[in-house]
């Protein structure tokens, strides 16, 4: 294994981790499996494409071809994706949480509603924007560095650094802010949190918006490597869900560990000559099944820690 492979694996892992953490936090605090995470991903990508396309002339006119222009462009792409993601989170809150959170069968019904949202949004995007993929402006620019005889593309490095930064910020928010404390209280014991006066309704909104924004960041970062399309969210959703489960739902560190494991597994399987790219999914799921047989609650989830 050489550095190039490690970079490739980390690149995959950081995108997966962004998705998986969102799903994991949401499940343990709000008790919702968010199937609309893929739709959030795709919508954020389109929002970033639309806004950056609209603002491109203005930025070019103001800053010309300076470094400032690319910095502005990068922040426009990121900001629009994050805002769109947060907005999607708010929509999910309004449709899949608020009307039914105190009604029977809440967890199954919220799963179904988010699933319906996912299907509906993906098809609406396809219907409105057409089947063509869209390219986002390359915020990290084109090119690569040579490091220890290995080529590292800008977008790979940018994705790894950006994702790690966002994750650290999120964890810091959870750790040090008042809201974060409330969310963690809900993650540990929802009933206990309710007894100590933490409102579920009031906490669910920021959590949903935060996880939506994480999906937005993932969309903006992944779109540096591939393109924005209506079905772009499917793979990240499936990967995010499986990794969140593999990590043990509700365990943030478990999710990160699982993302890194799967990232490396995919990278390594991809270069083994007789396996190759076509057996990547095969190997991933075989690995997950194996882990689940030996550790029924995933990697991070100790039996009592995870939510029942």
């Amino acid at each position, binding site marked *: 294994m050489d550095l190039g492979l490690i970079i490739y694996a980390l690149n995959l892992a950081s995108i997966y981790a962004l998705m998986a953490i969102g799903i994991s936090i949401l499940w343990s605090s709000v008790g919702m*499996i968010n199937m609309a995470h893929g739709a959030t991903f795709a919508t954020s990508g389109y929002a970033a494409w639309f806004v950056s396309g609209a603002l491109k002339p203005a930025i070019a006119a103001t800053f010309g071809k300076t470094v400032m222009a690319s910095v502005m462009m990068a922040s426009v792409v990121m900001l629009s994706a994050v805002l769109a993601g947060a907005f999607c989170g708010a929509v999910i809150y309004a*449709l899949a949480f608020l*009307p*039914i959170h*105190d*009604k*029977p*069968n809440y967890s*199954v*019904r919220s799963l*179904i*509603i988010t*699933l*319906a*949202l996912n*299907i*509906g949004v993906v*098809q*609406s995007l*396809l*219907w409105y924007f057409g089947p063509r993929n869209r390219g986002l402006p390359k915020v990290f620019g084109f090119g690569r560095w040579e490091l220890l005889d290995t080529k590292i593309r800008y977008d790979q490095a940018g994705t790894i650094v950006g994702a790690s930064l966002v994750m650290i910020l999120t964890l810091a928010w959870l750790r040090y802010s008042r809201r974060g404390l409330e969310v963690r209280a809900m993650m540990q014991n929802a009933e206990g949190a*309710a007894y100590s006066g933490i*409102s*579920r*309704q009031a906490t669910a909104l920021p959590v949903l918006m935060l996880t939506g924004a994480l999906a937005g960041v993932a969309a903006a970062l992944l779109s540096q490597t591939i393109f924005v399309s209506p079905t772009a969210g*499917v793979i990240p959703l*499936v990967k995010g*869900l*499986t990794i969140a*489960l*593999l990590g043990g*739902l509700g365990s943030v560190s478990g999710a990160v560990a699982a993302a890194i494991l799967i990232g490396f597994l995919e990278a390594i399987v991809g270069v083994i000559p007789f396996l190759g790219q*076509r*057996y990547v*999914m*095969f190997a991933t*799921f*075989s690995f*997950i*099944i194996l882990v*689940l*047989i030996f550790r*029924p*609650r*995933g990697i991070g989830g100790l039996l009592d820690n995870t939510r*029942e």
Partner: protein
Amino acid sequence: MTVKTYYKVRRRPWEYKLSPDGKVARNRLRLPFTRRHFLKWRDAYNPKSLKRERRLADKKPLWWTIGLLAFVVVTPFLSNSMISIAAIFCIYASINLLWTLIVGTAGIFSLATLAIVGVSGYAAAASNVFLGLPWPFILLVGPMVGFVAGSILAAPSTRLDGLYYALLTMGVAEICRVFVTQLRSLTQTNGAITQVDSFIPEDWFLQRPGLLLGFAGAFCLLLGSLLLWRLINSERLGLLLRTAKTGREDEAFAEAVGIDFRRARLTVFVLSSSALGLVGGFYAMYFKSISPNIFSLDQLLLLFAMMVIGGLGRAEGAVVGAAIVTLIDKGFIEIGPLRIILVAAIMLVVTIFAREGLTGVRDQFRDFRKRKSGERRAQRTEKGGEAMPEEAVEVHDK
């Protein structure tokens, strides 16, 4: 001086009741070899008229018969494409019923339903195309493979719970899909096995007589699934499982009274899997081909949407949901992607407003009415709401 309102007290004046001769002893037909009756007739004396009245306490069998009869009588007069849609509906409804048995009755959250259908269908089709077994054996190979696949998949279900098991089964489906698409001998056809022999003669295939024959077969399949559903749910197995249905406490209780609910769950799982294997074989024969699309997540979600719209865990829900979604998905292909958005919208609205799908709306409305009438009764009571039922209290923001 307040005006007093009087409320009429009587039971279901609109309901049609038979008035049998009170002097004749009742003689009821029983199902052969069992002590069961065909229909749930209940007799009672009307206290006012002192006449004997007989009414049907459970009308579901009646609705089922009327619905299925109407369906089977009307379908042969429809257009060719409607007949195929009807047949596809029968196949989907059967799969949904068997899935409901696994998810609802056995309480195992499996997403490998279509994977079992697919694996058995592929095995059965391969036995016909590559080994040259004649077509009646497809109906044998299918269930056998389904039985084996079900037994293997059932093993981890006692160890894993809920979502983790769902993930595992999703992984199995994905592995099946990748495996089939990688098979080099099927590369030519994109992983599909084609030209499977069928109970529909070659010359009739996709023509009127063939379509009718196919529909007849699919309808029999649906009847078979309904029968299996009924047999499992109303016999001992269903009773055992209902004891351990809702949660940890129930499971503990069932264990304490000596019910081996795990074993019962596995039995239902394996039984349904065998039946799913039969559906798989039938599917391969009906279309004379089977493609890897059967393992795809999209197809699974479509079936899930059906169950959810109809109502999870109910036989009528599985069938009604399959009818609605199949009609929209296959019948409205002219409106393009809009129809998928329509399915999603129906799913969304139904789930937000109905707690157990469309077929649960009636019960939900009754509960609602009961609650409202309880609230009103509470307001009427002069003593200040003693009779207020518990449901009238909504805890705001628990």
